[in-house]
């Protein structure tokens, strides 16, 4: 017996979906999608499941993660039901399902909640900075510790359990049936997709988009490594300093391009922006931008007299690390690669 949620399309609207009930099931979206294939035909099936309110089937499905949103389906949809945006909304919905804390769903559905969370964290950082007497040395020290602790905490208590939940939902019908060997054999796929996102290359539009994404991911991961493990803000090593400058510059330049295209709305992919999309690109931009100038201020020796900049950077960093990374769009990075991994595991098992 399948459970039906008749309010499902209404609920999806708060995640950004449009009038999916307009769909008349012609399958044009699936046919124009260059990523859709015989094993995984989407997005029409997802629209059908959404219209019927079959939540469990959607929860089990990895199809939303297979879409990289070139927008061709939305451009050509004869009913203008925006299948591309539906897939995006389903990704948000899935994130909120995977998330055991329930915070993702709250933040996606309510702009007020997101704003409140951002303000609380900003106030907290300001209070802490005031408590430390705005002492640059102490703030830099604690900031560096915060990064390490936050990474460990978010990964261990949020992301890891969420990925386990994703696995649980995805394989809900076949948990015990899959041999361990399938998981080990497929593990390569996880890392290949995580670090190359090569699937995007299959999209008709996106050779450039793929490249921008790729250097953004690499810039971001390297900057994380440089600041956390090479102590960018504390080091005297010229190579590390230069590396950090390049990485942070890459981040704010690429995200600036992304923000601009979301403002211009020329491409299908940037036509519709949910608050969570804005948070993601703007905060990533601010991260790169403030990090760049913090290091610059250190190098020209004016940070001590301009500690406000570091406090600003810390606010952005805390909001990023405690809201966007565990509960927001950042998780795409993980879920997309795990989705590819799980699909490979499934196909190995059926063979």
């Amino acid at each position, binding site marked *: 017996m399948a459970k039906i949620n008749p309010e499902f399309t209404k609920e999806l609207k708060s995640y950004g979906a449009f009038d999916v009930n307009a769909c*008349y099931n*012609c*399958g044009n979206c699936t046919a*124009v999608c260059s990523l859709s294939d015989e094993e995984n035909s989407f997005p029409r099936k997802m629209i059908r499941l959404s219209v019927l309110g079959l939540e469990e089937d959607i929860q089990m499905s990895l199809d939303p993660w297979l879409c990289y949103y070139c927008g061709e389906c939305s451009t050509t949809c*004869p009913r203008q039901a925006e299948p591309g945006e539906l897939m995006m909304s389903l990704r948000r919905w899935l994130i909120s399902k995977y998330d055991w804390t329930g915070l993702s769903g709250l933040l996606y559905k309510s702009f007020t909640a997101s704003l409140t969370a951002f303000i609380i964290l900003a106030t907290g950082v300001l209070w802490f900075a005031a408590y430390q007497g705005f002492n640059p040395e102490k703030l830099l020290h604690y900031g560096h510790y915060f990064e390490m602790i936050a990474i460990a905490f978010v990964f261990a208590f949020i992301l890891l359990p969420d990925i386990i939940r994703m696995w649980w939902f995805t394989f809900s019908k076949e948990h015990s049936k899959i041999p361990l060997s399938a998981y080990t054999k497929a593990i390569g796929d996880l890392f290949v997709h995580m670090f190359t996102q090569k699937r995007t290359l299959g999209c008709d539009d996106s050779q450039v988009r793929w490249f921008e994404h790729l250097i953004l991911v690499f810039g971001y991961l390297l900057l994380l490594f440089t600041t956390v493990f090479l102590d960018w803000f504390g080091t005297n090593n010229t190579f590390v300093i230069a590396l950090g400058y390049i990485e942070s510059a890459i981040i704010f330049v690429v995200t600036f391009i992304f923000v601009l295209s979301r403002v211009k709305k020329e491409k299908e992919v940037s036509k519709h922006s949910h608050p969570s999309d804005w948070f993601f690109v703007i905060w990533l931009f601010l991260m790169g931008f403030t990090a760049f100038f913090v290091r610059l201020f250190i190098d020209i020796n004016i940070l001590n007299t301009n500690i406000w900049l570091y406090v600003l950077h810390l606010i952005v960093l805390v909001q990023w690390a405690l809201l966007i990374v565990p509960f927001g769009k950042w998780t795409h990075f993980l879920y997309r690669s795990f989705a590819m991994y799980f699909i490979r595991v499934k196909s190995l098992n059926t063979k």
Partner: protein
Amino acid sequence: MPEQKETLEYDVLVVGGGIAGGESALNLANIGYKVLLLEKELTIGGKMILLSKVFPTLDCAACITTPKVSEISRHPNITIFTSTVAKKINKIAEHRFEAVILKKPRYVNVPDCTGCQLCEEACPVSVTDQYQYGLVGRKAAYIPFSIASPRAAAIDIDNCTLCGACERACPTKCIDFTQTEEEYLVKVKSVVVATGFNLFDPLKIPRYGFGKFKNVITSMQMERQLAPTRPFNTILRPGDGKMPDNIAYVLCTGSRDKTVGNPICSQICCMYSIKQAQLLMGALPMADITIYYLHIRAFGKGFNEFYAQAQDMGVEFVKGKVGKITENEDGNLILRYEDIESGVVKEAEHDMVVLSVGVLPNMEISETFENKNLELDPFNFVGQPDILASPAKTSIEGVFVAGTASGPMDIPDSILSGGAASAETTSYLRRASL
């Protein structure tokens, strides 16, 4: 400036000489009214005269149209102006309309032309034939097609080199290059709008490759290939002249599609595609025919039986909208679609693809009404403010609408609509004489 000719007076002005306008004109003329029938093309008969057979009876379209067309052209109460458009129409008072019409020169004196085609033979200029929808060529001096009415030559002045060969070849000396545009003032008591429809231009859907892939044709081109006056006398694919043996139909090309601005059903494509599929099974007994559809709309009398007959004959029906078409090196085409029954995206190879193009409104006529507004419906067809009780009425009292000018419909409905318009026009005219 076109030459201003004398003022003409009639009872009714019928704009459009297709099957609906023709039916209206004929009914009105039979009652005794004097009718002026305007046709912008060189021949009356509209789109129907170009068709192969009609659904669901498979009667020959030309065999129904030609007697009617000949009756219209020989009727003493009907005057036909071909190559003529209405420039402006004004309502002066109830039962008083004044229209300015523009007659383009044909450069042939029609009554003197015997249709001998010697001018065609003599003409050195070849261009594509619009009446065969670009499948073959014609000369610059030409007779539109063999069952045209009037069956008289015309000079395509845009492509003519003015060499004079046709003039020298003409045995009756009916070619006259001194003809110019003529403008008339027409006084009538009532107007019937029967301006028909336009076919959807599939160039607007580049992912179907029409215009780029030679073996992707429109349903009207296939209609010409199947008609008695067909250009090749068999079915050939345009790319290399091969006889196709695996033909695909793509339904809803330009219909029910908001992205091309036409969200409504064209009402005829399902049935004409099923008809063509049946005719093709006769013309090419070994060929496979596949129809890709969204929903088959077989709602008229005998339509569903006709659909079932096609299935029994072996026409394959696949539910799924074709998303894109690509071309192989050998000119065959790959259709990508989602098979809705199984929910799986598939690709199929066909050696010829027919795009079942839809019906679009012909909006020009609303602009010719100057002092009154001929209202259009939300889809830009002529509006019917009283569609249930009085379907031929428009927003202007005394102006009536017939046929596909008011919306997509098939041939029997167009003829019915033409009849309704003539009846309502009669009742309007009778009120004038009371």
